[in-house]
C-alpha cells in the first residue's frame, strides 16, 4: 500500500504530520479571534474594555502558536510551548471567571464559558497542542 503512512522520522518538522492539522486549526482561531477583537475594539470598545482586551490577547496567543508551529525548530517549539501554556491558563482562568462572575464579562470572548461559543474547541485545543509538542521531542543529534 503506497499511500499508507509509515513511521514518523525523528527529525520531522513540528508543523508536519498531525502538526499540520494543528496548524490549520490554530490558523483558523488566530484569524477569527483577532478579527473579532478588531471589530469589537474598533466599533464599541467602551462597552466592555476588559473582555475586548482579552479577546485581543487571545488572538495574539493563537497567532503566536500558529507561527511557532509553522516555524518549527528549537525556537518555534519554544514559542508554541509558551503560547499553548498561556492559552491553557487563559481558557481555564477566563472560563472560570466568566462562570462565577458574569458581570465582568458582559460581552463574550473566545475563552468565555470555556469556549462554549466555539464548540469548546478553545478548551480542548491547548491540550492537543501541548500533547503534540511534548510528543514531538527533538532527537539528539
Amino acid at each position, binding site marked *: 500500500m503506497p*499511500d*499508507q*503512512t509509515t513511521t514518523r522520522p525523528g527529525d520531522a518538522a513540528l508543523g*508536519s*504530520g*498531525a502538526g*499540520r*492539522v494543528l*496548524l*490549520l*486549526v490554530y*490558523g*483558523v482561531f488566530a*484569524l*477569527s479571534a483577532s*478579527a473579532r477583537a478588531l*471589530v469589537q475594539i474598533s*466599533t464599541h470598545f467602551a462597552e466592555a474594555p476588559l473582555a475586548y482586551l482579552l479577546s485581543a490577547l487571545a488572538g495574539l496567543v493563537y497567532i503566536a502558536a500558529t507561527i511557532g508551529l509553522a516555524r518549527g525548530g528549537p525556537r518555534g517549539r519554544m514559542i508554541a510551548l509558551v503560547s499553548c501554556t498561556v492559552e491553557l491558563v487563559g481558557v481555564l482562568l477566563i472560563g472560570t471567571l466568566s462562570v462565577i462572575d458574569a458581570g465582568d464579562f458582559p460581552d463574550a470572548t473566545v475563552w468565555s464559558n470555556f469556549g462554549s461559543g466555539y464548540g469548546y474547541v478553545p478548551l480542548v485545543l491547548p491540550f492537543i497542542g501541548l500533547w503534540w509538542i511534548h510528543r514531538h521531542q527533538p532527537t539528539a543529534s
Partner: protein
Amino acid sequence: MNGVLSSATIVAALALAVWYLLRTALDRAPDRIDLTAAGVLGVLVAVLVVVAVAGLFDGSRPADTATFAGYLITTAGLVPTALILAKMEPTRWGNLILGIGCLVLPVLVLRLQQIASVTGA
C-alpha cells in the same frame, strides 16, 4: 444570502467531512479523488461568495457589513488553504486537514446567514 446555494454548500461539506474522517480513520493519504472533491467544494464556495458579494451591491446590506465581509474572506480562503496544506501532507493527516476544513465551513456559512439576516436601516 442565497438559501439554496448555502444549504447545498453545507450539505456537501458535511458529507465530504464524513468521507475525509473515514479516510483518516482508515489511515489513507489524500488521493486524486479526495483532492478533486475538495476542489469541487472550493468551486461551490467560490460561487457562493461571488453571489454574496454581488448581493452587497444590490439591495439591503447586512447591518454589520464589516463582520460580514470578514467572514466572506475567511469563507473564500478556507477550502483553498486546507487543500494546499493537504497536498503538503501526503499522510492520513492530509485527509484530517480536509475533514476539519469541511467541518469549519458549515459554521462559517451559518454565521454568514445569521449576519445577513440582520439588515440595517
